[in-house]
């Protein structure tokens, strides 16, 4: 080997050694000696402290040769602490394996906690600042106690169940979804508040329903299912949602196949105003019962009634946001912030959003008409 080659090899080796302090065996723990935290549910105790339930993996060995993950693979550890920072050491003191937060998939806040402005800020800030928690974890608000969600008996891993639901159903869920990083973004950037899906125990399973509307760190109230649908359309989501609508010939059923929304800011006598146009491509899956044969005119009729229905639902959602909750989760303020920065400077969005004149329009295209003939 030439001297040059030796020197090159030596330099490479040096580079390798220099990179070593970045990680190594000193903090290595075998995966089987880890307790992976998949979900965490946080409630407010009556005395103002936090009741935190962590759902960790725990392979059950039993007496059998093959271990099994189901049932009893998940174990819930509940601790009561004044702040979130004390949770992990306390949970660790009850587990033989090392707690690993990086597989956290679902964070469920109890409704009471979410509405408590001080506590919610404490909890969310700790979560966002945690270096080990995965910021793609989903954030949900429980109708009632969050701990109950993680203790649904028929689901082996309720936290993973929720995660898989959001992963698999994607856009067609009837609720918006909120990852931890999106929450962070809503807080640090102006003009848009966060909205988290609601979750509740439905018999033996878990159901997502309704939307928890935030203002800053804390929750201000719920949107019901219909309002949530309107909100989804205003957000350009809600693909796959089906709904029935009244026509003169009876109830028709329409499913949204593609949705898009355009938020167009304008000024109305120096005051900000907003045009919201929802574009929706739908499929008529149920024709109105008193419509025998379907002609083009009939389709035009169904289309028009669909537009009216979409506009009506969006109006309901907008009214709830502007009048009842006074929180801009659609992100209309963000539109002004980006496209009319000079105007935005003059606005106080907290006060201006509830008074914002909004023109709601729906443009519907119906496809696959042949399905009805």
């Amino acid at each position: 080997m030439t001297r040059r080659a030796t020197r090159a090899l030596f330099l490479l080796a040096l580079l390798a050694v220099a990179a070593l302090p970045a990680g190594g065996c000193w903090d290595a723990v075998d995966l089987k000696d880890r307790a992976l935290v998949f979900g965490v549910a946080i409630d407010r105790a009556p005395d103002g402290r936090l009741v935190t339930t962590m759902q960790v993996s725990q392979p059950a060995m039993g007496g059998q040769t093959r271990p099994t993950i189901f049932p009893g693979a998940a174990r819930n550890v509940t601790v009561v602490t004044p702040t979130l920072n004390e949770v992990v050491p306390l949970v660790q003191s009850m587990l033989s394996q090392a707690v690993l937060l990086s597989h956290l998939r679902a964070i469920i806040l109890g409704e009471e906690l979410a509405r408590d402005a001080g506590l919610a800020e404490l909890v969310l800030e700790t979560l966002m600042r945690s270096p080990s928690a995965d910021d793609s974890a989903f954030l949900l608000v429980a109708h009632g106690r969050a701990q109950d969600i993680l203790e649904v008996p028929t689901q082996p891993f309720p936290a993973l169940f929720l995660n898989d639901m959001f992963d698999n159903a994607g856009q067609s869920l009837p609720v918006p979804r909120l990852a931890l990083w999106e929450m962070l973004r809503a807080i640090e950037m102006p003009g848009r508040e966060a909205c988290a899906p609601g979750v509740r125990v439905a018999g033996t399973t878990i159901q997502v329903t309704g939307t928890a509307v935030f203002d800053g760190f804390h929750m201000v109230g719920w949107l019901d299912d219909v309002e949530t649908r309107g909100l989804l359309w205003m957000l350009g989501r809600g693909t796959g949602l089906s709904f029935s609508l009244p026509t003169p010939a009876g109830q028709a059923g329409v499913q949204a196949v593609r949705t898009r929304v355009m938020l167009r800011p304008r000024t109305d006598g120096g005051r900000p105003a907003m045009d919201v146009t929802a574009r929706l491509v739908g499929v008529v899956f149920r024709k109105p019962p008193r419509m025998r044969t379907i002609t083009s005119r009939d389709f035009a009729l169904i289309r028009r009634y669909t537009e009216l229905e979409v506009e009506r639902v969006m109006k309901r959602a907008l009214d709830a946001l502007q009048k009842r909750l006074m929180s801009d989760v659609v992100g209309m303020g963000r539109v002004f912030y980006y496209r009319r920065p000079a105007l935005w400077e003059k606005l106080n969005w907290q006060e201006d959003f509830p008074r914002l004149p909004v023109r709601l329009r729906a443009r519907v295209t119906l496809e696959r008409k042949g399905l009805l003939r």
Partner: protein
Amino acid sequence: MGIRSLLSRVLGRRQPGGGDRRPQAGGPRRDAANRRDLDPAPGRGDGAAPDREAPGKKALDVDLSDYEGFLRTFRRGVGKSDDIVVHEMRLGIDRRRRAALVFVDGMVDRRVVGDDIARPLLTPAKRLGLAPGRSLLQVISEQVLSATQVHSTGDYDWVVDRILGGDTAVIIEGQKRALVIDTKRFLHRGPERPLSELNVKGSFEGFTEVLKVNITQVRRRVRSASLRVKMITLGRKSHNQVALLYIEEIANPALVREVERRVGSIQHEAVTLQAVVQCLIADSPLTPFPLFRDTERPDFTASELLDGKVAVMVDNTAFAAILPSTLFDFVRSSEDYSALFWGGTLLRPVRYIALLLAVLLPGLYVAVLSVHPTFIPHNLALSIIVSRAGTPFPPVIEAAILLLAVEILREAAVRLPSAMGPTLATVGGIVLGQAAVNARVVSDLSLIIIALTGIAQLIAPGFELGFTVRLLVWPFLIAASIFGLLGLVAVGLVVVGHLAGLESVGVPYLGPLITGEWMLLRDVFIRAPFQSLRFRPAYLWPLDVRKQGRVAARRAEGRRAAREPFPVGIEPMEELLQEESPSGAAAAWRGHDGNGEPGGTRPTGEDGS
């Protein structure tokens, strides 16, 4: 008066070159047999036999004309071996003269020795020796022996060497030179399927242990006048033959010279392929990477020669060393070229991926599992936890145990008679693995990972690369267990740096990646269709870079031909028919055409009835 004195009296008075007065086949010859004062210059042997004395070699340590003395010396030396036969007889053309046949039992064709040498020598034929101007050896080799390839020599060492090589020596009393007749015939393997490089399609012939057969196999595939075979005899004790094969029109002369120089510098007592290897890898003798490809396949050898490389073959070895080689040559298989190019294009990436897996997979597994658990998606993490629950060892120990077990199994399988292979596979692979998993000694995931690694390690068509891969997996594993992915990257950097500096006979080991010939990569990571493989690798500096001409013209021609329904043969035939009988046969032909038009006589697939 003995025939010896008679002959010497008859011939001794002749002037040098006297025998040339009569026209003789074989050109001017000099009768040196009975004249000791003559200079035994090379190429001027006596008799019909070409002289085999090497210039500068000390001739006649043993005086061959001293028959008794020769036999005594011979029997005290080489002749002590029991397999060496010394058969004494009296010559048929001169009953007073003794002669000895010397050969090695088992290496000669007994039929040739008996029928073509011994019997003619014993047959009385008195008049033969009396022809004037001819030595006894000349007479014997030209008129008595019916064997071909007869040489005469006065060099005792050379005689012994030839005897040990399977030739038969005839020592005649009173003659200064001995006759050496090619009678080699020993049992050897015929060409069989190349076991280390099996294939499904293409040629099924592999090299054998006989050098001449191997050269023939290559020559059959490259019937070029410029295929050169350079034979070198090497080995102070073993006297092995080493052949250098190259194509003079293509291979760079500097490359050939360098290979020749390196091979010629071998100082070993016995030359084996391993010895040749040692001198050929003088670039960096300690590298774990094989610096040249050795192959068992004549077709692969031929195609590499046509790329401008040099093949080195050693007698008694069924492999040819091809050099220079790049790393990528070990991932090429001759089968890539005997099937559709899609096949090669699919398999090449598979091989590279498998090689990467074979080196990196255990390290990656250990690194991710013990140092970077956050990299694992949660679903996989769950199943890993389930799989590994209750196993006592950390992943690195598991991986090491299993890798060792795979090595042991493989080594045992190589030495095992083939009939016991299935037993080993069952007991070693299935029973042992299953039991180990059931007993929770190792986790089933580790078993899967290491089994995949073990299989991937076998995928390189160049067998030697497999050893490298099996070796390299360990540093990666150890680095990964200590430093995680950073350790993998660090070792990877060192390996890549080492590879980039390697040379095989002066050619960069990473070939086109180093020289920047990106065009050549179409025959590295994929196998492009033949028409686009137009150039030889320029990093070999071949004398002729272009492998085939431009294909565009040919392709256009082909398209034109394809538009014509019957491009070849039909029209001249029709003319022929019209010439013969304008009305009869051509009319019949048109009738077959179905429309009878004079212009449209070509039967096409569309309108033919």
